[in-house]
Each structure stands twice: as structure tokens, then as C-alpha cells.
């Protein structure tokens, strides 16, 4: 599953471009923010000079134009040249470099396999889930000798260099989620939450619910009151690699953040899988009860992702658990309808922090560093220097503002206090076609960059969606009303503050191709995908019997070895961050 969630984090990229507000599950490591905030002032004063010196160095090179090929393993945008966009053109003017981007069509592993077999690569690859394959094949060059030469790259990646090293001590790719400056939390919920239709809360008088039982009771009461509407009480996403949207629920209910397949104890730092523990049993039993009452959507186990999104958009589903980025399409449809017609606000989903017994949730992501995704330069590239130079230029603060906020007076404004904001007209103007043309789509993710939760030297959030002024503008009156009922100003405020977890997210710790850990994950997927539906749909009297069957099947896996490996990895990260 961890592997799959990584894919998910890339789907984030899509979600980022799909929703005006972006929070990735990838935030700079905790140590980094400390380092950064202490050295912030110095860094920031030098940032602009760094930038000019870099451009001076490259002034001679910039004269001559060059186009590099780039393959992106996520099909999140049409193919094209970066210099056909406003951002890319500006970068070409600064560096002389243009990238011809090709996105994935079809199956990623097959595509990467073909590249490896032919030993011909594009100059630059962002291989998403195919990264282990390329590393195995020795497709990437070592970036270590270059990093020192480029001040902006060094500044952004400096705190992470030790974690970026492969087994052989070399650095083959640049990850995307480095924290620069102070940590800006996301006011929206792009991560996990238990969602419920607003009309349910309205009818129940806006109760402050915390526990799983209260949540399911709320759903049940509402469905029973509206028998004639043919409502679906609770749905869950299980399709293909997205199965984690279902299986992660017990981890979150137990008060853990999304570390993938393991829960990590905050004192002993032991990694333990949760698939066979009492929490998972308790949660499956709750779903089983829900199903017996006719409140669980059986089709959850056969629907594909599109059907699931269509269901959520159909206003028939009362409650569900999922990650904000994964349901952005459904949420946007419902929110847009509510913007046009306030009566439709009833059907907008409200995120809730739910745990088993009301213990503090850890649904918001702590600052983290996703280490097993990134962009690298291949052995086929003729001129790595030019590429690194481009990235260095891209990592200057001015260019980060350009790729994130855009152009002053065109896509954002600055008030007299120096705060960045967007006018409602600008927000309306920046739709998908505009984003593509401007380059927001290409540069939202998949490049060396400041992580989403970064803060600029002038105190503004790097990501417009995380800027409080922009967020407040995006709220409808109804949004404000319901937030007021719960005494908060943002959705995120309802949730508990994330604890510091230097290793977060544990699923982002790289695993080798064909390693025992990867094989364990594949087998675990098989067993859970087969038995979870059985357990949920069983007659309540048979539940224990099926649970025992499941334990038997799960017992064949080398779970102890997997946990041991993870515990070692966590220890190593903790030691490195001391």
C-alpha cells in the first residue's frame, strides 16, 4: 500500500492543479524548518543576490537556446513545451532552456521498462512510481558534484542532503517537498477526514461529534429519518491501488497519521502494522454492523473510482472517509453548485475529525518529507549543467513566486502591508485552461521547488491556497456560517495539531525493487482486498469466524520482518535528525 500511496501523493499533483488550494502531504522536515527559521533572515537577504549571481554566470550560456526532453510519469496535463507558457517563457528568457514535456500514456512500468531496455532516456525524468526501476537500472546521474555549485539548490536541499542519499551515498534525484521558511498550515482539508453532508449536521443541530460511534449514529439517524430518499449511509473507496482509502481508516481512528502500513509509537518509535490488531477488528466490526443495518454501500467493493466519484457527486451519500485530494472532483462539483445556489449548501461535505473514543486525531499531516519521489537527470542527458542551472534559477524566490502566485497585477495583488492576495475576479479568471496556458499546471509539482507549506521571506505563504486572505475570500456565507457554529475560522482548526514526526510520512521511505518489503506489501494487498469485503458483508454472527480465517491468511506473511525493517529505518532517520 505504501507504494500505492506514493502514487497517491502524485495524484496530489493533479489535485493541486484541480483545486485552487494545494496542500501536499509533503512538508519539509521538522529539523529543516528549525534550521530554516533560524537562518531565515540571512538566507532571505542573500536570496536575491544569489539569484543575480547565478544569472550572471549563466548569461553567456543563456544566449544559446536549448530544448531538453522531459518525461513525466503522471498523466496530469497535455504534452507540450514549457516555453509555450508564461512561466516557462520567463524561465527560458533567464536561462535559455526549454523543456519538451511528454506525459505518461498507458502503463508506467511498461513505459519505464521500455526505456531501460533500449537504454535511451529522455534528458530528465520524473518517474513517479517507476523510480526504483530507474535507480536499479542506473539511469540517473549522480547530482552530488553539481549541488554545491548552485546556491539556490544548495539552500533549498541543504538540510535534506543526508536523507536524499541512496545506499551508495550518491544523490540521484531531487524530491519535491522541501520545507523553506516557516511552516504554513493548510486551512483546507486536503488530507484524511470523515466527511458528512452539511444537512445532516444542520438537522442534528450542529453537534460536536468526536467518536466513531457518534459519527455512525449521526449517519444512521439521518438515513432513518429520510427513508424515502434512497440514501446511502456510508460509502468507501476500494478500487485498485486506492484501496488504502478504506484500509487506512482504522489507523486514523486509532489516532495515527497516514504513515502507510505502520503505526509508529511516539515513545518507543517501534513500527507496528495494524492490519490484524484490535483497532482494525473493531472498525471492521463497526462496518459489519453498519452493513447489517443496510447503511453500508455494498457496491463500495465493486465500484471503480469514477463510479465512486459519481456517487459522491450525486448527493445520495451521507458520509464517508477519504482524503481531500482524492475527492476534489466531487467536492468541487458540490461546492460550485452551492456557490450558484445557496440551498445546495446542504449537500456540501463537511470534514470531521473522528477517532475511536474521541482521542486527539492526527488527520492533519505533520511537516514531512517524501523521499521516494523526485526528478532526476538521466545518463542520456548531454548537458546536465544547463539543466541544473535551470533548476537553480527556478528555485530563486522570485521564480517560486512566479510559479506559484504568478504575475503581480495579473494573477495576484499586494496590499499596503505587503500581503499577497487575489481578487475574486482573478480567482474566477484562473480556471483550468488559464492555468495550463500560464504554466501553473506544469509547474505546480514535478519540479525542484519549495514544498507546498513553505513561507516566503516576506512572510507570505508560498501557495495561494494556504494564504489566509485567499482562503477567506473563497468561503461562501454558508461556509462561514457552519465554521462559526463550530467556533473556527478554517476547516483545519477543527482538527488536532499534528505532533512532530521527523520520519513522516513513513510510506515515503524508499523500498528497493523486489525487496521483501515490496513483496510483503503486494501480498498484504491481496489478503486485505479479499477478506475486508468478506468481513464487512458477512452476517454479524459469522464475523468472528471470517476474522479468524483472515488472521490465518495474514499469518502467512512475514510481518515481523517488515516491522523490523521499518523500525530500523525510523531509528536511522531519528538519529540523523538529532
Amino acid at each position, binding site marked *: 500500500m505504501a507504494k500505492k500511496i506514493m502514487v497517491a501523493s502524485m495524484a496530489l499533483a493533479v489535485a493541486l492543479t484541480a483545486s485552487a488550494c494545494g496542500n501536499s502531504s509533503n512538508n519539509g522536515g521538522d529539523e529543516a524548518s528549525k534550521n530554516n527559521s533560524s537562518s531565515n533572515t540571512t538566507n532571505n537577504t542573500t536570496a536575491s543576490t544569489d539569484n543575480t549571481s547565478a544569472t550572471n554566470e549563466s548569461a553567456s550560456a543563456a544566449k544559446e537556446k536549448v530544448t531538453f526532453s522531459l518525461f513525466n510519469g503522471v498523466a496530469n496535463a497535455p504534452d507540450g513545451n514549457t516555453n509555450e507558457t508564461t512561466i516557462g517563457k520567463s524561465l527560458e528568457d533567464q536561462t535559455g532552456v526549454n523543456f519538451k514535456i511528454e506525459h505518461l500514456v498507458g502503463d508506467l512500468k511498461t513505459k519505464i*521498462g521500455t526505456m531501460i531496455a533500449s537504454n535511451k532516456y529522455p534528458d530528465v525524468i520524473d518517474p513517479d512510481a517507476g523510480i526504483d526501476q530507474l535507480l536499479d537500472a542506473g539511469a540517473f546521474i549522480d547530482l552530488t558534484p553539481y549541488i554545491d555549485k548552485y546556491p539556490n539548490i544548495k539552500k533549498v536541499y541543504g538540510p535534506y542532503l543526508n536523507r536524499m542519499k541512496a545506499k551508495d551515498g550518491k544523490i540521484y534525484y531531487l524530491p519535491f517537498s522541501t520545507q523553506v521558511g516557516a511552516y504554513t498550515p493548510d486551512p483546507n482539508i486536503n488530507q484524511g477526514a470523515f466527511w458528512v453532508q452539511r444537512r445532516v449536521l444542520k438537522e442534528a443541530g450542529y453537534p460536536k461529534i468526536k467518536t466513531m460511534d457518534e459519527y455512525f449514529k449521526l449517519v444512521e439517524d439521518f438515513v432513518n429519518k429520510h427513508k424515502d430518499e434512497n440514501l446511502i449511509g456510508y460509502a468507501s473507496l476500494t478500487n485498485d491501488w486506492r484501496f488504502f482509502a478504506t484500509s487506512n481508516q482504522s489507523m486514523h481512528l486509532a489516532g495515527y497519521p497516514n504513515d502507510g502500513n505502520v503505526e509508529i509509537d511516539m515513545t518507543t518509535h517501534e513500527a507496528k502494522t495494524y492490519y490484524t490488531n484490535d483497532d482494525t477488528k473493531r472498525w471492521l466490526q463497526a462496518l459489519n454492523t453498519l452493513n447489517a443495518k443496510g447503511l453500508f454501500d*455494498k457496491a463500495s*467493493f*465493486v*465500484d*471503480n473510482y469514477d*463510479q465512486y466519484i459519481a456517487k459522491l457527486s450525486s448527493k445520495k451519500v451521507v458520509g464517508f472517509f477519504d482524503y481531500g485530494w482524492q475527492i476534489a472532483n466531487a467536492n468541487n462539483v458540490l461546492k460550485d453548485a452551492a456557490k450558484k445556489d445557496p440551498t445546495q449548501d446542504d449537500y456540501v461535505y463537511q470534514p470531521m475529525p473522528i477517532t475511536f473514543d474521541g482521542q486527539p486525531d492526527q488527520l492533519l499531516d505533520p511537516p514531512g518529507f517524501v523521499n521516494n519521489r523526485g526528478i532526476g537527470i538521466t545518463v542520456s542527458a548531454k548537458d546536465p549543467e544547463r539543466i541544473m542551472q535551470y533548476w537553480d534559477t527556478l528555485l530563486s524566490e522570485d521564480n517560486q513566486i512566479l510559479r506559484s502566485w504568478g504575475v503581480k497585477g495579473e494573477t495576484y495583488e499586494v496590499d499596503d502591508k505587503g500581503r499577497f492576495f487575489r481578487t475574486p475576479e482573478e480567482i474566477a479568471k484562473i480556471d483550468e485552461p488559464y492555468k495550463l496556458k500560464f504554466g501553473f499546471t506544469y509547474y505546480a509539482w514535478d519540479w525542484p521547488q519549495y514544498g507546498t507549506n513553505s513561507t516566503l521571506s516576506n512572510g507570505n505563504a508560498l501557495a495561494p491556497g494556504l494564504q489566509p486572505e485567499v482562503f477567506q475570500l473563497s468561503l461562501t456565507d454558508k461556509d462561514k456560517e457552519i465554521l462559526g457554529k463550530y467556533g473556527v475560522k478554517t476547516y483545519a482548526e477543527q482538527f488536532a495539531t499534528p505532533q512532530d514526526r521527523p520520519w513522516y510520512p513513513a510510506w515515503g521511505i524508499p523500498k528497493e525493487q523486489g525487496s521483501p518489503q515490496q513483496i510483503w506489501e503486494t501480498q498484504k494487498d491481496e489478503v486485505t482486498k479479499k477478506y475486508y*469485503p*468478506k468481513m464487512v458483508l458477512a452476517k454479524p454472527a459469522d464475523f468472528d469466524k471470517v476474522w479468524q480465517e483472515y488472521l490465518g491468511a495474514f499469518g502467512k506473511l512475514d510481518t515481523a520482518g517488515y516491522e523490523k525493517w521499518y523500525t530500523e529505518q525510523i531509528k536511522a532517520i531519528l538519529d540523523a535528525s538529532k
Partner: protein
Amino acid sequence: MEKSFLKKLIQQRMLVLMSVPFVIWLFIFKYLPLWGWTIAFQKYKPALSFSQQKWVGFEHFKFLFQDDRFLRVLRNTLAMSGINLVLGFVTAITLALLLNEVRIMAFKRIVQTVSYLPHFISWVVAAGIIQTTLAPDGIINEILIGTHIISKGNEILFLGIPHYFWGIFGASSVWKEVGWNTIVYLAAMTAIDPSQYEAADMDGAGRFRKMWNVTLPGIRPVIVVLLIMNIGNLMESGFEPQYLLGNGMNVDFSENIDIFVLKYGIEQSNYSLSIAAGMFKTVVSLILLTTANTIAKKTGEARLF
């Protein structure tokens, strides 16, 4: 002998020349890649050159046949392609016979068009249609509730019941391909000499008698050739429908060799295992094809070679 062969070759030089490009194509795309079969006997790593690969003999094949999962997917593959073969032939021939008897041209055309249209729908779309139809709130369950066969709240989750999968697969394949498969039989029927029907009329044969004694024997060579070719494809039970309609609940019955190869070979970058499974498929197909052909030969029927 030699001479006559040469003579024939020169006589038919135009035909030979015409087939040369295809022979070359066949060689490049079908024979040269066989070199890749060596991967099945290595612990293949993509980045290394041929001489650096580690040879492991039959290890991957051993792993395959000792893996009860593989035996299960083999069973599913054969079952599904068997169902497909029998159903495909019976339904297509029956529909072709019936269409052949239709005298109202407009009606015949409409039926033909309607029945072969689904062939042009991609499996992705078709799977969506099938899933929606079979959903708990889909039309099948609606009908069952409407006719009081099941009560509300006890909707059947068709795709969640493993034993139903082969049936669902067979029915969807027939729906999708039956019209398309009739075309070749209808074409063969037009080649039957009308005087045979007249002679049967004279002997007082009715419609069904004529179908049985004139039409069917008339298209027998076509049936046999297609049958031989399809038997050669028994190891290919398709990929998309199983992949799209399969889920955790019906995996024991929906997973076939192709999906197995994807899951445990390609997705794990274990190319050697994929090739070993592919080789196994090819060898079995070859045996089936030659066997079927030999049987056809022995019984004096039309055959491939």
C-alpha cells in the same frame, strides 16, 4: 521434384514477391523477439548486458508450477476461454442461421447492426455499463425486486460473488461479440449453391431440415478452421474484462494468466517470471493448435496446414 518446385516458384514469382514483405515482417516481429526467451532462464536485471546476466535454469518455471496461485489462474484462464469458445460458437452460428432465414431485409439489417455494435465499444466502457447494470441499485436488481424474486435490502452484489464471475464474463462476451462473429458465417452462407436448397425443397424438406442438412454442412469448413484457430487461442482468455470487472471479492475466479503476469511479473519488475509464464502459454497454445489440426486432418475436414 526439385525441378518442379523451381518451376513452380518461377511461375508464381509474382505471388512470391507479394508475400516477401510479410515474411520479412513476420521474421522481424515474431521470430527475432524469441531471442528474449532467454530471459526466462536468467535472473534478469534490465540494466545489465546479456553476458552479465545470471543464469538460473528452470527456477522460474519451478516457482510457477509450485505456486498454487498460478494453478488457480491457469484454471480460470482455461475455464473462461472454454466458456468463451463454446458460447461464442453456439450463439454466433445460431444467430447466423436465424438471420439467414429472415426474408425481410430491413429487419435483418437492423438486427445485424444492433447485434454487432457492441463490438466497437471499448472494454473500458463496456465494463462500466456491465458494472452499472449489475450494481445493487442497477436494473437487474430492480427487475428482481419488481418481480418479488428478492426483497428490498437484499440486493444481489453480482460482481462480489466469485462463482458468478465466469457466467458474467461469458454473458458479457457474447453480448459484445456475437453480432461480429456472425458476419463470417453469413458470408460463408451466401456461397452455398442455391440449387441445393431447390433440391431439398423438391425432396420436401422444411425450413429446419434445410438448415440442418444444407446450410450447416455448407459452412462446415469455415466452422472447423475457426475452431482450430480458436483452440490455439485457448490460453488467451482476454485481459481487459477480467482486469476491469475483477475485484478483491471475485479474484479467485477472475484472475487469469495475463493478470497474474502483470501483478507478479511486470509490476514487480520480475521480467523473467513474466517471460516464463508467457513461454508456458505459447507452448501450450502450440500443442493445442497442432492437436486440433491433426484431428481435423484425420477426420478429413478442412484444416489450417
